[in-house]
């Protein structure tokens, strides 16, 4: 007969306020196999844990049930407790009396009954608990960072600074991301490029960082400490080793119709190009879709003019496979496409532009050389209307969230406009001004008072395209008046949304994303950079919209977490995983197909002397213990350790006899 100890926690008044703890203890004492039952105010506290340890020793207990909060909270705590008393840590069961009882019920008598039942179930289960042994795995001491914007750059630099090797993968031809497209940064108005480009160079020069641009992650296998990743290095058609970055090829390329992604489609680019002059690496790529040679077989101008003989039309995509211990996801954001806003012209009115397009105009490296010109006729705009919350806080467009940066970037752009053209007028339509960062509110005030930007609280109902101007109709809800503004240009503060391919990557990595497509952190407050997949971390706007300071802070936090993981000598893995009984396995592959983690292998095994069959085998370090294979197995050949059929049957018996 087992000797089980039952320990019921009051959790202050959290549990004891609803559940009659003494009744639970009394009932537990009568259960088969229970040698002792007691309660205590805070079982997780030091005296509480000592109470458990001493009782185990005095009463020679071999199993423990703790009735307390959710096992997500303190299962590990109590496992370590009983381990200190000399028991196998897996001889523990938790009855969740807080989240499952006291926090969700208010009627005391029935809550107590439920608590009694839950403890009875835990006692029934613990009776069949086996002593499980911990599993250890090696750690590959290298990190992969996906995305080469400011988030990925900062994370890569910080991980390398901790002394670990990093591979930084960027899908575009250059690192730099969104920040490299910006002109000034709020609220300090430092030049974005001036603070970013040194970091880009630092990445390129760091001997611990391997930079893979124009590359994408295609497949991810493995688990924390041992990820195996396939990366597709797309054909650049320019040799990385031979190219000297002189730019003659771009200059001479006759194909110039393609809209420049880097310039937010307000200018064109060549078929062989670097996104911007400060690109890292400063090596062009040939965009196959717009190249004349690839379309017609004729041209080859770039090959002819290249002084280094670096152009190579025969290059092909190359898949490289590498192992990493940790993965940082920093894929960033896309801008909301305002073509769904019919009232603002379905994105078809030339002088209605996005904030990013204005940003490229103000930028001295941009296509207009730093001058704001309206796209329809190149005229300097006098009156510019800014509309905030386009694709943010708009349920009708399926974007209920706040994009967090638009209030600030609109204020910044209005300031730059006023600075650039002192005779211009800037009018901002806003819903609320959200300026919660350091120095942000002061910045907004300065924009309104010193720079005379007019803020109107209300929405724009419609933009009318007139012959040589736009007519903006809206409402000023503070004065209660309808307003009509004759404007030369309208700038939409389009919101942030996850990258189009973010969900595909989430599925490759098995990480979650929320209803808006942003990746889900493990805990919104206490684990903001971890994901539910151990060894995969988040940084930047792929997790939620954020500004540059927050992104950099989160990236450094992620790097610290990666450092903590990689600094371990070996990795402890939960032993609650599936196990195959080869004697019962028919080799039907149901489990193989069902497993979402690829943790099952089919292997020829000698199941009895002289009898070799192909049966399922669990890859110990890949299995997450989800139990899908158990449900799928017709032969009952697979069982989940810690959650065996036998244990669950004991619990079902308890339930069915009540």
């Amino acid at each position: 007969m087992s000797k089980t100890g039952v320990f019921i926690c009051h959790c202050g008044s959290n549990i004891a306020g609803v559940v009659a703890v003494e009744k639970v203890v009394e009932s537990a004492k009568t259960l088969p196999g229970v040698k002792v039952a007691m309660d205590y105010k805070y079982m997780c506290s030091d005296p509480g844990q000592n109470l458990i340890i001493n009782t185990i020793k005095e009463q020679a207990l071999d199993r423990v049930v703790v009735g307390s909060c959710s096992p997500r909270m303190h299962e590990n705590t109590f496992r370590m407790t009983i381990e200190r008393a000399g028991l196998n840590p897996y001889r523990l069961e938790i009855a969740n009396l807080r989240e499952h009882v006291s926090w969700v019920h208010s009627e005391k008598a029935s809550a107590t009954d439920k608590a009694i039942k839950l403890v009875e179930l835990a006692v029934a289960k613990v009776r069949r608990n086996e002593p499980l042994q911990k599993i250890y795995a090696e750690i590959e001491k290298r990190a992969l960072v996906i995305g080469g914007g400011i988030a990925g750059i900062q994370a890569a630099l910080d991980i390398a600074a901790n002394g670990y090797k990093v591979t930084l993968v960027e899908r575009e031809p250059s690192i730099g991301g969104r920040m490299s497209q910006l002109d000034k940064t709020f609220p300090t108005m430092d030049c974005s490029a001036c603070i970013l480009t040194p970091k880009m160079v630092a990445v390129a020069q760091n001997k611990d960082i391997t930079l893979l641009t124009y590359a994408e992650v295609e497949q991810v296998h493995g688990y924390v400490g041992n990820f195996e990743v396939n990366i597709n290095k797309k054909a650049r058609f320019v040799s990385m080793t031979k190219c000297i970055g002189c730019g003659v090829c771009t200059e001479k390329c006759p194909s110039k119709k393609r809209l420049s992604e880097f310039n937010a489609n307000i200018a064109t680019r060549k078929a062989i190009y670097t996104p911007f002059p400060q690109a890292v690496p400063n090596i062009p790529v040939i965009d196959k879709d717009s190249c004349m040679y690839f379309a017609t077989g004729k041209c080859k101008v770039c090959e002819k003019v290249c002084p280094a003989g670096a152009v190579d039309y025969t290059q092909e995509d190359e898949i490289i496979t590498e192992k990493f211990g940790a993965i940082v996801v920093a894929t960033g954001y896309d801008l909301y496409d305002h073509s769904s806003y019919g009232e603002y012209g379905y994105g078809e009115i030339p002088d209605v532009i996005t904030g990013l397009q204005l940003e490229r105009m103000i930028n001295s490296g941009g296509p207009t050389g730093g001058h704001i010109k309206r796209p329809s006729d190149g005229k300097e705009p006098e009156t510019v209307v800014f509309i905030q919350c386009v694709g943010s806080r708009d349920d009708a467009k399926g974007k209920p969230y706040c994009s967090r940066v638009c209030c600030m970037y609109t204020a910044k752009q209005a300031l730059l406009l006023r600075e650039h053209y002192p005779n211009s007028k800037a009018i901002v339509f806003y819903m609320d001004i959200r300026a919660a960062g350091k120095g942000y509110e002061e910045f907004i005030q300065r924009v309104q008072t010193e720079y005379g930007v007019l803020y109107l609280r209300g929405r724009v109902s419609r933009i009318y395209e007139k012959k040589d101007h736009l007519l903006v109709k809206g409402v000023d809800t503070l004065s209660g008046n309808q307003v009509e503004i004759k404007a030369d240009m309208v700038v939409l503060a389009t919101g942030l949304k996850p990258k189009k391919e973010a969900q595909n990557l989430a599925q490759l990595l098995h990480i979650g994303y929320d209803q808006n497509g942003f990746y889900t952190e493990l805990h919104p407050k206490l684990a903001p950079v971890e994901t539910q997949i151990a060894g995969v971390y988040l940084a930047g706007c792929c997790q939620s919209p954020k500004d540059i300071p927050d992104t950099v802070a989160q990236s450094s936090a992620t790097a610290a977490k990666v450092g903590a993981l990689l600094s371990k000598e070996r990795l402890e893995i939960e032993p609650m995983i599936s196990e195959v009984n080869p004697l019962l396995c028919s080799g039907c592959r149901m489990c193989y197909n069902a497993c979402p983690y690829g943790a099952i292998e089919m292997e020829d095994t000698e199941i009895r002397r002289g009898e070799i069959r192909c049966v399922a085998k669990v890859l110990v370090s890949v299995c997450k213990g989800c139990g899908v294979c158990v449900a799928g197995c017709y032969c009952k050949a697979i069982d989940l350790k810690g959650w065996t059929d036998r244990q669950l049957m004991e619990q079902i018996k308890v339930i069915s006899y009540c």
Partner: protein
Amino acid sequence: MYKVAYFPGCSLDSTAKEYGISTRLICKDLGIELLEIHAWICCGATTAHITSELMAAALPAMSLLQAEKRNLPICSPCSACFSRLKLADIDLKKNVQLRMDVAEVIGGEYKGTTEVLHLWQVIQKYGNLKPKKELKGLKVASYYGCLLTRPPEVCPDERIEDPQFLDNLVTSLGGEPVLRWNYKTQCCGAAFSLTKTDIVHRLSGEILKDARERDADCIIVACPLCHSNLDARQAEIKLNFSIPILYFTQLIGLALGYGYAELGLRKHFVQARGLLSLKGLL
């Protein structure tokens, strides 16, 4: 012949008689048989739905029920009637209690199997439209108004702020639509026509002025009230130009070779005869 239950509504026998005349004329040509609903009653217009939800649903339901019994789709050329029929259809399908209440009032349950169409949709889907005379060189601004486009669930076009269907019709007749015209769904002043005429003058005036600014030769409409605001009030608005307002059915009629008087064009305040002769369409 494509058979459809026809709900003309009150305007088409009175202020918008020419809309009714041109509708019947072209439908015969296009292979559409309009079967007028027997003893049809008022659609409820704006009055019913600001007074009582039950009345707003029950009045159109009488006509919907007739069409359903004969297993026919129902159509109306008037935007207001179409809007009321369509919204009643949507509400009755969604709200079981309302459906039961209405059934009690009108003495029969409308099950919601009738397709509710605007006349334009019938022509587009089932009409055999082959213009005899192309409307070459005629710049047409299509004015949709509010009832065809709002609320979004009644709008036959996905682009509710910039619908295209009438513009596409103009193109298919060989005419030249005024594209990206922002005033096409702007309010004309609607029922304020009688109570606060100054509002109509301002709103309809903006529409007319912008159409002229974009070099439109004429404006086409699909709503009797829009027509009366834009056409009958045009002289009062005191513009320094005049622009003919046609029903889209009249435009189709011209392309099918019908004459000026046949299509009831003489009934308009702003006569289109000069324009149409100039373009060689008469």
